[in-house]
């Protein structure tokens, strides 16, 4: 049997989903009561009164709750999941607002009714009196701190954090050249097609709660809900249904709804379900990406970065339940594949009266990549050097691995790159996009009056973040192999990928392997799905667990066949003496043999009795350090993250009249080590690239000065259709194995999105000859940039070549 590792196996998930037999959250609980929420229409206000009497009169309404109705455990702020010493002023929301609301969409009251229509009718009738307060919207306002989001958080500053490696100020002061840049990325969001949802069933007799939630962490929700409801962990089970996309937003937990819905179910003695609608998802879940950065970089005549100082401001929205992960990732992953002589990064995480900010695919890396790559391009422009040459000169060399960047990563561990070959990757991307030949293409286009440009961007991504994942593998007497791991799936094909690994390890057909994810009844210790960690973490765990099961199976079979385990192999589900198929017994039979039951329940058990010769009467049927059954349970806990990397390159055309941007080519070179299922990895890249394009050219959350989200719908928040993505995504792979896990793999889930904004900004700048420092860039934005540039730089400096020096509006940047 050939190995499934590396095979383009079609997915086991698909058949049900294609037939419309998916079980997404809202498909479940058809008998449940429906919850709807009264949400604040103000960005910042005091609540002076809530009158629910009219709402209670609506037919079909069962209950209306406000903060006053909640028990003490629930009438307090939700957990701050990831504390950090620098997060000195962390604030989290109440499940239902207590006296103050801090963003449009914050939950104020919960209505439970016979169906969602009636619940919304009642929610409309809940009369909340607000005293509006000044709203702090945008980073400029947050920094200026004329008004505060939280009265007890001076300067709207949740955290100030500094990391440094080397003496950056000295390095910059001594550098032959210095550049300063201001760079900005605006807010976007994960925006999965399925919003959040929770279904709770409380069983009064057994005093147990079963919760379904569209989450990225079933164990996280379980622990939080148990704590909030005052239940033992063993009284709560969380099952993750089919999830219609997560992209990070569903890692946050517990959402207010995730604790309120089970609480209501228990209070009312009936199942209760909450299904978020699209407007709620815009104003009551989470956003990400909004940051402003100021860069000061000192470099030499070759473009080598001697000192890099990055000061940035992160808009964390009204609360920080997820801590500082996003800005910490920006801080550390900004370095990409480079080794600046010295690096200092400082950020302020600031409150605004807007929706929370928590990780969205890339989780701060897209911003970091944008900053670093635009800086490198600016250095190249100032020195009139080829942009890939400057990159080459700054790359960490393969011989320098493992490379210690001298910083602490988001997992609290040293930022040490384990493996990677950045020079080889650069050569590949240049080749794929045709970097050397582009100047000719550009000239030819210019002769036709067309503007085209080329850009590229590099990133490094810490994946397979700990602390651990685990897995359980059991061979049943039927020969079927049941696998469980605690993290969750949102469309990444985990069940397929993990089944490939188990099938390979155990020597069984993939069709005999069934994988369950995200169900605390099946596996109770887990962290969750985020940070591109599933293949590394659960992949390693299922492999180790399957190995244990295999060892056991060989031992038991060896006893039955009276050979040494070393003489045996497992192929096609049969345990046999190497090269002797006739000698084989099925794994199912081995499973029967491993469990010395008194009773023969079925044919498999009966058939196994031919081997049950009674055993040694001097020994117990189950030895002291042994167990019945063919099972393996294993955990994988890496010492550090493992670092994937990649480079994207794009060729764009800009319209001289309409400023529209068209992507002519989009190339990806991608290194996540060996690929378990190339088709799945490519699919992840395609999806990530689409989100990267979305973030570069289309998507931004538009808040007005009153803190109203003006584009809270799919009509005005512009996610790409097929017409907006590149016509083709050309992919080449590199594989530098990881030394940090048994499979040698690295994570792949987020990679596609990370360098999108950087690569496209670079290409547009190359086409236009105008610095692009802020994304997303719409045609209108580009038009306005052109206008501003025409006004400020006429007459332009002569002798600018393609890809050469770009004048800065303030005249700086050429010689420091």
């Amino acid at each position, binding site marked *: 049997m050939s190995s499934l590792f590396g095979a383009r196996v*079609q*997915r086991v*998930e*698909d*058949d049900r*989903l*294609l*037939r*419309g*037999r*998916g*079980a*997404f959250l*809202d*498909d479940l609980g*058809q008998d449940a009561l429906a919850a709807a929420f009264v949400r604040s229409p103000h960005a910042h206000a005091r609540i002076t009164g809530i009158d629910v009497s009219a709402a209670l009169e609506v*037919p*079909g309404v069962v209950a209306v709750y406000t903060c006053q109705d909640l028990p003490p455990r629930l009438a307090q702020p939700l957990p701050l999941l990831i504390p950090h010493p620098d997060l000195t002023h962390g604030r989290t929301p109440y499940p239902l607002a207590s006296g103050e609301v801090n963003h449009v969409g914050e939950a104020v009251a919960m209505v439970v009714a*016979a*169906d969602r*229509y*009636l619940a919304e009718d009642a929610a409309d009738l809940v009369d909340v009196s607000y005293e509006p307060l000044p709203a702090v919207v945008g980073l400029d306002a947050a920094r200026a701190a004329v008004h505060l989001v939280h009265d007890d958080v001076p300067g709207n500053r949740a955290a100030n954090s500094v990391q440094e490696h080397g003496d950056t100020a000295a390095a910059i002061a001594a550098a032959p050249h210095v550049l300063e840049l201001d760079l900005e990325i605006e807010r976007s969001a994960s*925006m*999965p*097609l*399925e919003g959040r949802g929770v279904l709770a069933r409380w069983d009064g007799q057994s005093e147990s709660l079963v919760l379904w939630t569209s989450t990225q962490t079933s164990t996280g929700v379980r622990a939080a809900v148990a704590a909030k409801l005052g239940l033992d962990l063993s009284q709560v089970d969380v099952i993750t249904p*089919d*999830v*219609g*996309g997560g*992209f990070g937003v569903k890692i946050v937990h517990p959402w207010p709804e995730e604790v309120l819905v089970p609480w209501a179910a228990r209070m009312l003695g009936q199942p209760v379900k909450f299904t978020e*609608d*699209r407007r709620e998802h815009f104003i009551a879940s989470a956003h990400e990406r909004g940051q402003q950065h100021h860069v000061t970089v000192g470099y030499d005549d070759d473009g080598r970065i001697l000192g890099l100082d990055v000061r940035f401001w992160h808009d964390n929205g009204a609360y920080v339940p997820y801590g500082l992960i996003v800005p910490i990732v920006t801080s550390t992953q900004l370095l990409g594949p480079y080794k600046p002589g010295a690096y200092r990064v400082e950020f302020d995480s600031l409150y605004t009266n807007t929706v929370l900010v928590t990780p969205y695919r890339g989780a701060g890396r897209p911003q970091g990549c944008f900053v670093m790559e635009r800086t490198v391009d600016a250095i190249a422009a100032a020195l009139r050097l080829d942009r890939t040459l400057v990159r080459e000169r700054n790359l960490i060399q393969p011989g320098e691995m493992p490379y210690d960047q001298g910083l602490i990563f988001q997992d609290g561990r040293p930022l040490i790159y384990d493996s990677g070959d950045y020079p080889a990757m650069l050569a590949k991307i240049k080749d794929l996009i045709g970097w050397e030949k582009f100047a000719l293409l550009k000239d030819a286009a210019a002769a036709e009056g067309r503007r085209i440009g080329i850009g590229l961007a590099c990133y490094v991504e810490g994946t397979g973040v700990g602390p651990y994942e685990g897995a359980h593998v059991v061979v049943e007497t039927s020969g079927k192999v049941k696998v469980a791991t605690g993290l969750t799936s*949102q*469309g*990444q*094909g985990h069940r397929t990928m993990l089944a490939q690994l188990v099938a390979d390890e155990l020597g069984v057909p993939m069709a005999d392997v069934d994988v369950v994810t995200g169900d605390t009844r099946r596996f109770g210790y887990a962290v969750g799905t985020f940070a591109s960690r599933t293949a590394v973490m659960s992949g390693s765990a299922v492999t180790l667990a399957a190995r244990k099961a295999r060892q056991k199976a060989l031992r038991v079979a060896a006893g039955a066949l009276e050979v040494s385990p070393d003489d045996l192999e497992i192929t096609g589900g049969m345990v046999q003496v190497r090269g002797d198929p006739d000698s084989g017994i099925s794994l199912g039979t081995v499973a029967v043999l491993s469990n010395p039951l008194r009773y023969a329940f079925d044919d498999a058990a009966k058939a196994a009795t031919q081997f049950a010769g009674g055993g040694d009467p001097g020994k117990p049927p189950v030895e002291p350090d042994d167990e019945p059954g063919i099972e393996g349970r294993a955990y994988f806990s890496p010492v550090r993250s493992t670092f994937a990397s990649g480079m994207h390159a794009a060729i764009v055309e800009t319209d001289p009249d309409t400023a529209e941007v068209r992507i002519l080519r989009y190339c990806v070179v991608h290194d996540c080590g060996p690929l378990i299922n190339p*088709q*799945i990895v*490519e*699919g992840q*890249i*395609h*999806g*990530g*690239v*689409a*989100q990267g394009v979305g973030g570069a050219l289309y998507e931004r959350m538009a808040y007005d000065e009153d803190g109203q989200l003006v584009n809270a*719908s*799919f*009509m005005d928040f512009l*996610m790409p*259709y*097929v*017409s907006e*993505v590149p016509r*083709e*995504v050309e992919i080449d792979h590199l594989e530098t194995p990881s030394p940090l896990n048994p499979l040698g793999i690295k994570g792949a889930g987020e990679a*596609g999105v990370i360098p999108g904004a950087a690569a496209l900004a670079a290409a547009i700048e190359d086409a236009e000859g105008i610095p692009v420092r802020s994304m997303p860039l719409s045609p209108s934005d580009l038009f306005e940039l052109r206008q501003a540039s025409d006004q400020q730089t006429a007459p332009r400096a002569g002798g600018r070549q393609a890809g050469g020096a770009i004048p800065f509006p303030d005249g700086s940047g050429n010689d420091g």
Partner: protein
Amino acid sequence: MSAADELHGEELHEVRLTVNGAARTARVPARRLLSDCIRHDLRLTGTHVGCEHGVCGACTILLDGLPVRSCLLLAVSADGCDITTVEGLAETDGTLSAVQQAFFECHGLQCGFCTPGFLTTITAGLRVVPDPDDEQAREMIGGNLCRCTGYQNILASVHRAAEIIRERAASASAGRA
């Protein structure tokens, strides 16, 4: 209609539909969206709701053979109509339809939430344009959002589906010959 035909104070209307070939009825208030009627009254949950403002296309069904957004229709408006949902696409013996099979082969779905809307849309689309070129394939799926796949494999699925339809037609007539 008798006065007892109401629920929670709202008048109920009888809606008769043919759904995937079967006669179905529901008694619903006028404001009941067709998407909710299909999902919760008829318990066919394969059709999904992504936005309720007609943009994402996840709720797309075939109404008298044409793709429409079920979230933009009131169930009462659809009285008397013939509806096909994703549950009605596979063959009677359970074989995946050509479009479903193509998605499977081409990895055209990841989370599967938007997929039913694409399947119905493409099923109808290929009836009108059985041999789409690249532009026509893009036009066919141009009104449906997907957040997972980036569309590349969905486009491949459209072309593969057209191929499978041809292959099945060829082997059917070969079988008859």
